[in-house]
């Protein structure tokens, strides 16, 4: 099936000037000896980390509400109403307490792409969020669904718990490492392009709008709650 495999490996080894592969121990030793002087841990207290996350999200044009856990459903309702969303989906395993009761909501994991194309909005949780880059990370599984769920509907509302928020990219990779083989999507703002005359346009093929509800934060300001 792959007649080129051995010839390519042989060419690589010949090029590197050795007959066979390196010993696994040598390889591991080489890898662990590499310089890693960049910052790998946080240096901000929780409150500043949350402020940074909100600021970075707003940089991408993402609205953020910070609310106590008890009012997540209410805050979500406000945002969905503002978007005039009628058909709304959520992933299996999404906490019932976060579901706004007054909407027609459907668990969407088994919906086909063309069915999701007729949906107005999707609510999800996340696995990790990164303050420095304003990123939410979703992995296939409970409260996050299969990848198409957070891709096809035009509006994505993501609930982030403050305990899921880290400051730096290396901290996020460390938290994701145990589940590294799950399909993983880093989302930083709504889909965008600058392909035409370098003019930034928000909303290309992914959701044209992304909003975040941050819950359990040190300082709660139900700004978006009151916005409507």
């Amino acid at each position: 099936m792959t007649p080129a495999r051995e010839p390519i490996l042989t060419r690589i080894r010949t090029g590197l000037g050795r007959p066979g592969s390196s010993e696994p121990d040598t390889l591991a030793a080489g890898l662990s000896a590499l310089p890693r002087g960049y910052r790998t841990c946080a240096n901000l207290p929780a409150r500043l980390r949350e402020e940074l996350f909100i600021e970075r999200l707003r940089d991408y044009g993402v609205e953020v509400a910070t609310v106590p856990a008890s009012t997540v459903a209410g805050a979500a309702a406000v945002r969905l109403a503002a978007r005039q969303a009628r058909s709304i989906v959520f992933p299996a395993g999404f906490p019932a307490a976060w579901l706004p009761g007054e909407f027609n909501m459907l668990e969407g994991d088994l919906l086909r792409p063309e069915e999701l194309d007729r949906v107005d909005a999707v609510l999800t949780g996340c696995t990790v969020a990164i303050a420095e880059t304003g990123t939410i990370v979703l992995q296939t599984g409970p409260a996050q669904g299969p990848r198409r769920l957070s891709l096809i509907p035009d509006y994505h509302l993501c609930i982030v718990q403050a305990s899921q928020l880290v400051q730096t990219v290396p901290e996020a990779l460390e938290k994701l490492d145990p589940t590294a083989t799950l399909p993983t999507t880093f989302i930083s703002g709504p889909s965008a392009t600058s392909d035409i005359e370098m003019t930034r346009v928000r909303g290309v093929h992914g959701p044209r709008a992304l909003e975040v509800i941050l819950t359990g934060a040190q300082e709660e300001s139900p700004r978006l709650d009151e916005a409507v």
Partner: protein
Amino acid sequence: MTASFPAAARELLRNAQLRRNVAHATDVIRHKRDRVVEEREDWQELRDAGSAIRQHVLENLDSYLLQFEEACSAAGGQVHWARDAAEANRIALAILSSREVREVIKIKSMTTEEIGLNAALEARGISAIETDLAELIVQLGHDVPSHIVVPALHKNRQQIRELFLREMGLDQLGDTAEDLTAAARAWLRRRFLTARAAISGANFLIAETGGVAIVESEGNGRMCLTLPPLLITIAGIEKVIPSFRDLEVFLQTLPRSATGERMNPYNSIWTGTTGADGPQEFHVILLDNGRSRILADSESRQTLKCIRCGACQNVCPVYRQTGGHAYGSVYGGPIGAILTPQLHNLEQGASLPYASSLCGACYEVCPVKIDIPEVLIHLRSEIVAREQHTIGGMLGPWNLGMQAAARIFASGERMETAQKLGRAIQRPFAGTSGTIESLPFLLSGWTQSRDLRPIPQESFRAWWARRGKEES
């Protein structure tokens, strides 16, 4: 065969529109990049780490490829190996043909451009639809990319509007970037929902997990990776990184270098196949196509550290004047000037290593610290050495001139004689500006792109000798 760089550049320099677009795009990205790079105090440490990881991978490439193959296969992926472009295209065609696929959607991929995949598919009746907005513009216009990250930067809004009206069969269309983007969204949405196969490149292959990572902005990548039941990824063998956590370096350096963002909108990482999420069938084609030969040259091996961010293009004083098309290859700019000739074993693109002033700006911004000027000089010497092995090259004016110059510079007496001779014959050529702008015959090549200072009436050596006498 494409024109040499000087010939292509001369043509493109006359295109004022193109030069304005290139200057604007590269300026915008440069400034955004500088801002998000400056805020990272550990930027140099991130560059050091990125460089060291990539170098370590190249020195152990066989081991990491085997690790990737094993992990990817265990996760349900099928791994293929291709020695060259033709073999990679054949493998992709065989997979698509056996499943009777007539249409594939594609994620922007320099690698598939390199191997001419679209043309190979078309020849067998399979249409390949580019889904990245810029690539779609390039494809609909039967054009070629002019930049690694923003391939359609040479086209302006009016040109794109006309193209979309004609190729998408639309009756009316506005000319704002928003209008044009919305048109592409609508045109592609149905194709995303119905496509039976997708083809992607890869930003990173993760040896430890068998995962593949793709970095993008528009969401067209996510559509291609998750909706069609069949996915084929074509990746150069150098794209592998050791572990999942090594992404912590490249996910910080790549977006900042490529688009000047702290993070690009979407990064997707997937490993083999995963039940009902994503394709049921997943293939990876590992492409050599000249890379193992580059690896064998320890001086230019570092070329393969490249993560395709395009930062070197945006700062290059040559690229900024000519744009990418002058390089006659899918890879333009400084990285193209070293990568293209090497991929073709110096048989194509031999003029490219000279398309540089060696200012070193490319090295300064490179997130994996490829010393491009060093490789350029190395390739120049390779090209000269190879030329000298041909009769024409050996007896050519360039070689004879350089050999003569080497002899003259090697001896003070010969140098003095040559200067005297030069002083005598330069008079008719020195212009009013005090410089020689054009030399005749065989020497005209030298003044084609530079002015020459005339030989002064008194050389330093003569002045020094006179000064010694006057003082004593």
